[in-house]
């Protein structure tokens, strides 16, 4: 028994020793199409300059209910089946940042914390005492404050930028798993079916076993 106590005690000690990690802001990510479509627009305006989303095509944006004319404006000469590709040529990006800006297709699922991480990172920019801009969540980041949140003049402007960040994250979350909505709907039917099926199987089992004395 003392073995057990010792293990549990040690377990508790180690638990407390690990409670120090950068705190992430928790957000509820909307899953309705209008929010995602708004997010797509914000993403294209703020991120597409440098970032690519190679698994999402312009055609996919139409399925979100975005106006065809708007999509045509964004894609220009490119066909509808072109992936969302960064406007900045790779050579320029390499020269500016010494590394390529990452593809954002799966970003909402590629970090611990998922969408919360991306949101906290986007609003995590601040002005250091020496005047340069840093980031609380990812201090080594090479990306300059994309929304200018570190230079927000007042609370209202900051709130506005936080709203944009959340909107972008909404789009990123959809882009990382575009069938999530369909999965959710289908899942409810599947579970309902399985519950009824299991109930029936239970009755069958009861009935069959009742033959035993």
């Amino acid at each position, binding site marked *: 028994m003392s073995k057990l106590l010792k293990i549990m005690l040690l377990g508790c000690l180690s638990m407390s020793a690990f409670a120090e990690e950068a705190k992430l802001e928790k957000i509820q990510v909307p899953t309705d199409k209008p929010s995602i479509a708004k997010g797509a627009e914000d993403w294209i305006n703020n991120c597409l300059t440098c970032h690519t989303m190679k698994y999402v095509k312009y055609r996919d944006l139409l399925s979100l209910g975005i106006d065809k004319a708007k999509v045509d404006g964004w894609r220009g000469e490119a066909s509808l089946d072109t992936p969302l590709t960064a406007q900045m040529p790779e050579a320029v990006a390499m020269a500016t940042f010494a590394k390529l800006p990452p593809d954002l297709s799966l970003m909402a699922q590629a970090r611990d914390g*998922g969408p919360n991480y991306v949101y906290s990172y986007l609003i995590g920019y601040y002005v250091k005492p020496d005047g340069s801009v840093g980031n609380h969540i990812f201090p080594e980041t090479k990306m300059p404050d994309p929304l200018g949140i570190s230079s927000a003049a007042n609370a209202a402007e900051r709130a506005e930028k936080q709203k944009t960040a959340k909107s972008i994250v909404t789009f990123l979350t959809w882009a990382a798993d575009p069938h999530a909505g369909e999965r959710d709907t289908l899942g409810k039917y599947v579970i309902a079916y399985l519950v009824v099926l299991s109930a029936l199987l239970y009755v069958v089992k009861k009935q069959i076993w009742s033959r035993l004395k």
Partner: protein
Amino acid sequence: MSGPIINWIDKRFPLTSFVKHELTDYPTPRNLSYWWNFGFLAGIVLVLQVATGIFLAMHYKADATLAFDSIQHIMREVNYGWLLRYMHAVGASAFFFVIFVHMARTLYYGSFRAPRELLWWTGQGLLLMLMATAFMGYLLPWGQMSFWGATVITNLFKVTPFIGEQVVIWLRGDYSVGDDTLTRFFSLHYLFPFLIIGAVIVHLVALHTVKSSNPSGIDLKDKDNIPFHPYFTAKDLYGLGIFLIVYSVFVFFMPNSLIEPANNVPANPMMTPNHIVPEWYFLPFYAILRSVPNMFGGVVAMALSVMMFAFMPFLDRSRIPGGARYRPIYRLQFYLFLIDMLVLGYVGYKPPTNPSIVVVGQVATFCYFASFFVVPFVSKMEENWLIKRGLPAGIMELMEREKRDLEARKEEHRRRKGDRI
């Protein structure tokens, strides 16, 4: 079964007698609890994995430059590809969960004891094959964790005496994990499930030879056995319904809860992730590997930790039947072992940068092996103690009878030997 077609077949193939012998007349203890459902569930999960896997393989590309993209192609463009992939990924976890419960039940009720040793050992072989299959399958998405997990684990084979370096290269097909590793892992990941199906048949033949154990631990009289079909088919199907509900909750509502975020980043040999962790089902064994400071020792300890279960028929020397049911100390050992497994899992998940985690891991590793090594002594002492304290009449009677049978067999053996001289 009757009818002209069945008759025609029966003259050429033992169909009716097979169904009778293995299903409709197959005697099964009527007191089996729902803990006995998990073998059947493991079989179903195996079928699910093979079925989804075959369809995934139609769209997957085993090529280092295409693998990651082909997974996203499955997730986005293939009709219900996301469903196939999530079923397969969650299915791997479900497989281990079901197998762990199946093993825990065997340990708790002492089902590994004579005459079921071969049944237990074929199961042990199945566990090893399942682990190999899961490990190779994990490389296929070609994410960061896939790549580095495979790198770390294949690297362990360096400790092979004399030919370590060659063995690692032979496994990888290259000096480092790369395209050649991916293609061979894909090939073997497709092959192994069929070897597993073969081994499952051996497992079932062994089962049908010795029949199921049961919670009482006593071999039941004929009147307490009931035919497998329809009684246990009905019970197993109800259990399957419940299992599928839990499985579907994961597949549809939290499919990413078991996928490491880092595996959504394509494999990059130039960049090591901050913290390499295996899938949850390998965590306790991974913790044991890391708890031994010396690499050779760690690999041996990890291999041994998986194989320890095979020694249980020799380690458990108690003659009291029924596993933990009539044996309070064995029961306590069982639960302590489960807690130790959970602690090891937690340690395996945490980065080893914290010294207190390392110490916890070493203590838990020690406890892991100690809990096996004390079994022979504790089981014998417990037996003496329990006999002194008094056991239920049926149990005592059974033990007396087994003792008499053993004496009689020995006597017979001596007599025959005498005859020959």
